[in-house]
């Protein structure tokens, strides 16, 4: 034996976060993400192109109906740029949340047969969504060039920050729903509905300034994705979002993260019994 390791297996005690263990298993994050990306685009002719085509078609549809037909204002941006910038970050959230929530159930066979820190599974699901985001981001740059959209240099700072906010929001909700889904499969049906509702409550296809009721604005700002979307557009519009709304949204994102991870850690020991 090279490294004498001693540890004990006990009935569930109070345990918080095992960073060390996660670090030991770091390669598994990579392998799960890598596997899921491979599987996702296996036997597709277009492969990774789908990651680009999906938001592109969505953008075209929204531009036609909301931009042209309904004439929805889009701050000071061309509507396609407005909607694509929102969709880009939103899609990461919705795809990440959906697959993270179902990830534990989908990997039940593995969970029942082998031990590893369970958190790796939902996190990897989100990393897959991040990969798709990066693919679509290439198209986003193309769109920016096409519309000759001026971009503030702050994007170097703001875009990663916005991405981080979006990932925190995804992980918090995703881990929570993943754990709940293992125990109560009802959540499988709740998730698509939840994502749909949140889509309309987040200023992806319309600006929040369109709303005339201040109470409603506060309510919308409670969505953890509000901050991510507004931040992401900031280098394009140059319009600084309301700090109160931002604070509300960031706080709710952090709250979801804490609650989500806590619930996940508290129940993860019994996943194998329930899955």
């Amino acid at each position, binding site marked *: 034996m090279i490294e004498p390791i001693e540890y004990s297996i*006990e*009935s569930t005690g109070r345990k918080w976060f095992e960073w060390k263990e996660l670090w030991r298993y770091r390669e598994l994050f990579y392998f799960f993400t890598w596997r899921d990306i491979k*599987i996702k685009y296996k036997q597709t002719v277009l492969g990774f192109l789908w990651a680009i085509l999906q938001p592109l078609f969505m953008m075209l549809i929204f531009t036609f109906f909301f931009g042209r037909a309904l004439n929805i204002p889009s701050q000071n941006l061309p509507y396609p740029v407005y909607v694509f910038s929102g969709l880009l970050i939103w899609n990461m959230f919705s795809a990440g949340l959906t697959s993270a929530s179902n990830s534990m159930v989908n990997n039940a*066979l*593995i969970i029942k047969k*082998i031990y590893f820190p369970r958190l790796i599974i939902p996190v990897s699901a989100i990393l897959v969504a991040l990969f798709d985001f990066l693919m679509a981001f290439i198209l986003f740059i193309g769109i920016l060039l096409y519309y000759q959209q001026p971009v503030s240099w702050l994007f170097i700072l703001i875009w990663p920050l916005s991405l981080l906010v979006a990932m925190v929001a995804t992980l918090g909700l995703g881990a929570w729903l993943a754990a709940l889904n293992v125990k109560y499969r009802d959540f499988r049906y709740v998730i698509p509905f939840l994502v749909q509702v949140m889509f309309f409550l987040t200023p992806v296809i319309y600006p929040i300034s369109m709303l005339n009721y201040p109470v409603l604005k506060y309510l919308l700002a409670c969505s953890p994705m509000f901050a991510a979307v507004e931040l992401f557009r900031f280098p394009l519009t140059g319009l600084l979002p309301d700090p109160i709304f931002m604070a509300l949204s960031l706080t709710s994102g952090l709250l979801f993260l804490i609650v989500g991870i806590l619930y996940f850690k508290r129940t993860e020991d019994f996943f194998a019994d329930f899955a």
Partner: protein
Amino acid sequence: MKPILEVQHIGKKFRIQHLAGGYLSLRERMVNALKFQDNEVEDFWALKDVSFEVQPGESIGIIGRNGAGKSTLLKILSKITPPTTGRIISRGRIASLLEVGTGFHPELTGRENIFFNGSLLGMKRKEIESKFDEIVDFSGVEKFLDTPLKHFSSGMQLRLAFAVAAFLEPEILIIDEVLAVGDAEFQKKCLGKMEDVSKSGRTILFVSHQLGMVSQLCKNALLLEGGNIVQIGRAEEVINSYTRSYSSNNVFVNELTDQNKVYSINSVKPLNARMEITSNFAHNELITLEVIFSAKQNLLNTNLLIAVNNKNGQRIFSADKALNDLITVQNQNRVLLRIPSETLTPGSYSFFVAIHCPNTMSYDSKDLICPFTVFDNGSAFVQYENKWFYGDVFVKCEWEFFSI
């Protein structure tokens, strides 16, 4: 030297919920919460106060009937599910093989699956890379490495899966029944590999229903029954007492003796060498059948026939004996038939007993009685166990080789 694994008073409780669906539904939870009552639950202890120690380099077999708690114990040891009570102290890295090919995905290629599966089993990427050629070599599927797994035959998938597992190098290896699959040649290869592993000083915990394999691979064994440890000790002893305890009601007793019959078979019992009733024999154990019958008359030309049926009810062989002057009409007659050791191959059998006048009539006959099984206790054919049917009987043949 400190034990590498200390299992202290482990217990595992499951709640059996009496629900219609397999899993909890939120509606039921909420309805019950409104009614201020809990779901009807019943506690079930899959393991109760299990304690044992494993020394470094020891290989220990875990045996017991289905539902004895073997798999639960392995799951707790591999950290998949926590124990309800007690604790385990481990002084080495545990790798568990509760299944080969965990995480194998049909859409991924053989190469990709090796990496993913290896990583799941706890190998580092560099470790997999360095052993990659050996793994591929061991599996023998190099031609198909870049083919999606779904185009593999099930045998090939298994070889690949086992090849990855065979190159695990933890201090403690936990194996659950995984050898029960695969073709004969490959299984032999795996057994050899596992023997190497145990000889190299690693600790192995091995669960199997194939007692032959347990005795071949493990020095010691522990017997679980109803969640308790019944016995720990040398593998042969534990296996023996397990097979003895297995003997259930396999005795044939004819309670409704027909008074009109000239001959009637009253009881039939399979016995082991110690003359104990059993239904489980080692392949190299003497099988004795005791038949008790009564005769009202001693008719001429009457034979006692005892035959062995295989699991499909086909006769394998018969023993026929003319009774003539061997019996009495006053008392019951007791006959012992001995089947030499190493006659029947591992499998399930039953007896056919008849008292008859050859080719004319049967006075009394009982078919498919006293079911019994024969297990492999390390025969030359152990490698084929559950893989390939090599026949119902062992025959001592002679070989002669010439160079021409």
